[in-house]
């Protein structure tokens, strides 16, 4: 019980905005959403999102946090904007 309390304090829920583009937007059925999550990294966040949205596996996707490319193990902070991106196809 005490362990759970400490974890909740140190690693409390964060409010994260997630934006979806292109194929992922269609799969998610929305362009963005905001959620309160315990996910500490984009990897954990995507795992959580896949539980509620019909999103594809993360392999091949890229991640941006606050409009910068970041890796899947980047430490998220409260208020971050996270974007998961399908392989690009410009040009």
């Amino acid at each position: 019980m005490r362990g759970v309390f400490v974890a909740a304090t140190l690693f409390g829920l964060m409010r994260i905005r997630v934006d979806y583009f292109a194929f992922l937007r269609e799969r998610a059925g929305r362009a963005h959403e905001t959620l309160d999550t315990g996910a500490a990294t984009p990897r954990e966040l995507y795992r959580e999102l896949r539980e509620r949205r019909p999103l594809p596996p993360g392999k091949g996707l890229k991640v941006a946090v606050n409009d910068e490319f970041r890796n899947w193990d980047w430490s998220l902070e409260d208020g971050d904007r996270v974007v998961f991106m399908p392989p690009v196809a410009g040009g």
Partner: protein
Amino acid sequence: MSDFRISADAIDQAAELAALEDTASGAVACFCGRVRNHNEGRAVAGLQYECYEELAVSEGARVIAEAKERFGASRVLCVHRTGDLAIGDAAVWVGVAAAHRNEAFAAARYVIDEVKKRVPIWKREHYPEGPAEWINAP
């Protein structure tokens, strides 16, 4: 105005070229990617581009800075369309002014290659028959 731009309107190549004017540069190389009427053997009716604009603009600007640095190009511009495009419409335009043609060609080639690899823009093809498809969708 940034040297890399996202545009919801048609690309005005004459205006872009004019922006490359530079009396020290003897060589200008340009590339334009246009919507083809077919792709990998399948008839195409049109395209739609969607873009993560904040990151596209910063990543595109990085590509341009790299091209200038690597090839000593004096001016490098790139503009990429978003929205609905018809057959023949310009989807992306790259223009480079440099002292000589080696550098101009190399920089133009670098920009279009890197933009296609790195800049968060996505293409959805519409076909005369069958549902539209996102290219490269996982």
